[in-house]
């Protein structure tokens, strides 16, 4: 594919412009040389005109390119550009005048060729200045452009383009058509000159500078215009380049726009501080509304809030009072006032209406402001704004002014908006932090849950003569139920089930202690009663005063087909007797662990031994099962458990366990959530 080389329009147009100017100079000098020496050089003036138009277009392209490329530069830089070009053009022109003044009446002074050369130099600089200013104005006029303005500008540019070629019709003489074209273009330019939207965006200082630059441009254009007029008076021997419609229109346009800008900027000076203030307020508002990032401090938002409020109302002194979680009031962000003075003023404020109406407790402080007079030798008016986060009054801002009635309606409005926005930011920040914290707690709890699940055995000890199956479900993330088995040499097995008082995390901790106690004591192969006595002694040192553990402990002997058992406050175990085809709760006295924390405990625990046969079933469970309630607030109960076991007695241990849990869930219904831990251990003797 044919590819266009990446052309640099700026450089090319500049180069072409210079070359055009040089050829124009050469053509004109040659013609002049011919005229002076009464020789017909045969160079038509049209050639000069063509070169002049080409020069205009190239300079126009160059500036258009270079200003567009410096789009980022601000208005002041742009105006300075115009002003500096004006200074250069004027200096060159003055320099030429001085040069001729110094030459006096010497021969060189009247040399037409040298004069013509300087005339071309002047022409070039005037063109540069006018075109650069015009394109600068274009940039300013099209700031915050509308389609209408863009169309107008394009029309103006077309008019200017036509004006360049006007020279072919009237050879730069001042006839009516020339004046007509000039007035049309100047009126057009004046109409465009009302687009001055850039001025309000200048700061006070920038406005002063731009006024200076505009004056420079005006002086330059006026001087150069006078210069052009003087040339046109004494131009006769050479070709007139400067009485060009294009140039004169540009003079008019540049001058009018600079006058308009100058006046508008001047009249904008007094109000510019208000505009700046509004701009600062808008920026502050935006800063306040940006929510605080986690890890950052809400103090930063309050700091911005203080600054915003102070600048919005031209406040002389201010401080912020913040209530901490204990309800203590701390002073933060104290501005332009010392502690002693602040205390005095605060007391005055507290005793003055309407400030004394303020109370911390009510939840309708939102959007309230208190403005009033003060009887203080220094501060004559004050404003107090409560900070309300989540309906809770968390603090107050105090603003003081040395003038009476210093807070007008606009100020109070903008301040209460600021405060409202800052409070929303703080509220969002606090909510976010809370959410993060909760998320962390949840994770911690999940870890606790995993740890606790691992405390329950995944495998239960057994031999071929019996089946055993366990089930446990916690109401909360962590529970307090516990069961475990241990093989005690040949044919003997220890089985324990327990329930820790209370619920949740504290119960879970105590349960893990119980597990430790079991694993220590089971090594000694104690009888059930001994186990409970020793466990009670051990746990008496571990459990909190109002906590206890209930447990049932079994030692199974599969050889003699007997089991010994003791109970410590735990709900009685259900025993299904296959021979009688009925089940009964094993009755035995026994007090919970940790209730009597001394030797006397021995009095309260007993032990029994029972023989079993094939088909018999033991159901160990925790009270959550029998105390589970349905939506009529009736418990599942011991009887219902008994019936369920009788009904499903022929099933395997694991199936029986499932059936019991199914019956239980059917009973309580799906709508009710379990409010206690359920644990169940089913042992079925099969040989």
């Amino acid at each position, binding site marked *: 594919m044919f590819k266009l080389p990446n052309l640099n329009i700026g450089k090319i147009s500049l180069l072409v412009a210079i070359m055009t100017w040089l050829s124009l100079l050469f053509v004109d000098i040659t013609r002049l040389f011919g005229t002076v020496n009464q020789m017909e050089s045969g160079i038509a003036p049209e050639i000069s005109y063509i070169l002049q138009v080409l020069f205009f277009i190239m300079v126009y392209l160059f500036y258009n390119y270079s200003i567009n490329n410096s789009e980022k530069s601000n208005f002041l830089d742009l105006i300075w550009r115009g002003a500096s070009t004006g200074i250069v053009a004027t200096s060159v022109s003055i320099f030429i005048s001085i040069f001729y003044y110094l030459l006096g009446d010497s021969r060189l002074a009247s040399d037409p060729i040298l004069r013509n050369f300087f005339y071309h130099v002047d022409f070039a600089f005037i063109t540069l200045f006018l075109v650069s200013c015009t394109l600068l104005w274009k940039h300013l006029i099209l700031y915050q452009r509308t389609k209408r303005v863009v169309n107008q500008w394009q029309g103006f540019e077309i008019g200017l383009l036509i004006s360049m070629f006007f020279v072919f019709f009237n050879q730069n003489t001042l006839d009516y058509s020339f004046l007509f074209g000039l007035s049309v273009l100047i009126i057009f330019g004046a109409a465009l000159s009302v687009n001055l939207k850039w001025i309000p965006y200048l700061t006070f200082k920038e406005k002063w500078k731009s006024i200076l630059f505009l004056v420079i441009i005006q002086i330059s254009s006026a001087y150069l215009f006078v210069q052009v007029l003087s040339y046109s008076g004494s131009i006769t021997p050479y070709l007139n380049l400067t009485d060009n419609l294009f140039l004169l229109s540009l003079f008019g346009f540049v001058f009018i726009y600079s006058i308009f800008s100058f006046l508008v900027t001047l009249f904008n000076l007094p109000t510019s501080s208000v505009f700046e203030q509004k701009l600062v307020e808008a920026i502050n508002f935006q800063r306040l509304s940006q929510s605080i990032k986690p890890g950052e401090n809400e103090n930063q938002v309050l700091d911005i809030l203080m600054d915003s409020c102070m600048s919005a109302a031209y406040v002389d002194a201010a401080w912020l009072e913040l209530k901490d979680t204990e309800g203590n009031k701390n002073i933060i962000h104290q501005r332009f006032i010392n502690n002693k003075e602040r205390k005095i003023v605060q007391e005055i404020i507290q005793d003055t209406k309407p400030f004394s109406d303020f109370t911390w407790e009510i939840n309708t402080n939102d959007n309230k402001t208190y403005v009033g007079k003060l009887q203080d030798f220094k501060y004559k008016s004050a404003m107090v704004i409560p900070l309300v986060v989540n309906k809770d009054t968390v603090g107050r801002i105090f603003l003081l002014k040395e003038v009476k009635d210093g807070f007008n309606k606009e100020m109070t409005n903008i301040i209460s908006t600021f405060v409202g926005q800052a409070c929303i930011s703080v509220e969002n920040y606090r909510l976010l932090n809370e959410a993060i914290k909760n998320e962390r707690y949840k994770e911690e709890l999940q870890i606790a849950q995993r740890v606790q699940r691992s405390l329950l055995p995944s495998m239960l000890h057994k031999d071929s003569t019996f089946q055993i199956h366990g089930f446990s479900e916690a109401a909360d993330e962590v529970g307090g139920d516990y069961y475990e088995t241990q093989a005690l040499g040949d044919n003997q097995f220890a089985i324990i089930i327990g329930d820790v*008082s*209370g619920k*949740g995390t504290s119960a879970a901790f105590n349960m893990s202690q119980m597990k430790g106690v079991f694993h220590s004591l089971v090594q000694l192969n104690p009888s059930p009663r001994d186990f409970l006595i020793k466990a009670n002694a051990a746990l008496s040192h571990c459990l909190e005063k*109002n906590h*206890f553990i209930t447990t049932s402990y079994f030692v199974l002997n599969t050889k003699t087909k007997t089991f010994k058992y003791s109970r410590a406050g735990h709900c009685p175990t259900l025993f299904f007797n296959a021979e009688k085809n009925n089940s009964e709760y094993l009755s035995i*006295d*026994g007090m919970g662990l940790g209730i009597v924390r001394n030797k006397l405990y021995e009095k309260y625990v007993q032990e029994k031994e029972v023989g079993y046969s094939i088909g018999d079933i033991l159901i160990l469970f925790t*009270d959550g099962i029998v105390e589970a309630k349905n939506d009529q607030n009736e418990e599942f109960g011991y009887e219902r458990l008994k019936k369920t076991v009788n009904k499903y007695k022929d099933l395997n241990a694991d199936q029986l366990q499932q059936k019991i849990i199914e019956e239980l869930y059917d009973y309580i219904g799906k709508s009710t959530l379990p409010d206690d831990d359920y644990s169940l251990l089913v042992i079925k003797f099969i040989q």
Partner: protein
Amino acid sequence: MLKIETTKESNHVTLHLIGEVDASNSVELDESIIALMESGEKNILVDGTELQYISSAGLGVFMSYIEDFQEKNISLVIYGLNERVYQVFRILGLDQLIIIKSNKEDALQEI
């Protein structure tokens, strides 16, 4: 839900427990008993006729003061428990440590 009403009579104070005692409100029961102990009461009756349910946390409250009562010579008698609640006390063995009577008359005999 638990409501505790305290009525002072000539030689004793009665704690009237209405509703259910569970992990969430056992603290209230604890606070009322502490208050009675601090005010120097020697005879405390607990009226359980309207007590619907008591969880292990509630039992823990009664249990934790048994020794204190013995030391300070305070007698605490519970009466009027329904069968289900009484069974809870009995299974844990607390009936052997706390005097539990079926009605107020019997309870008054104990103090």
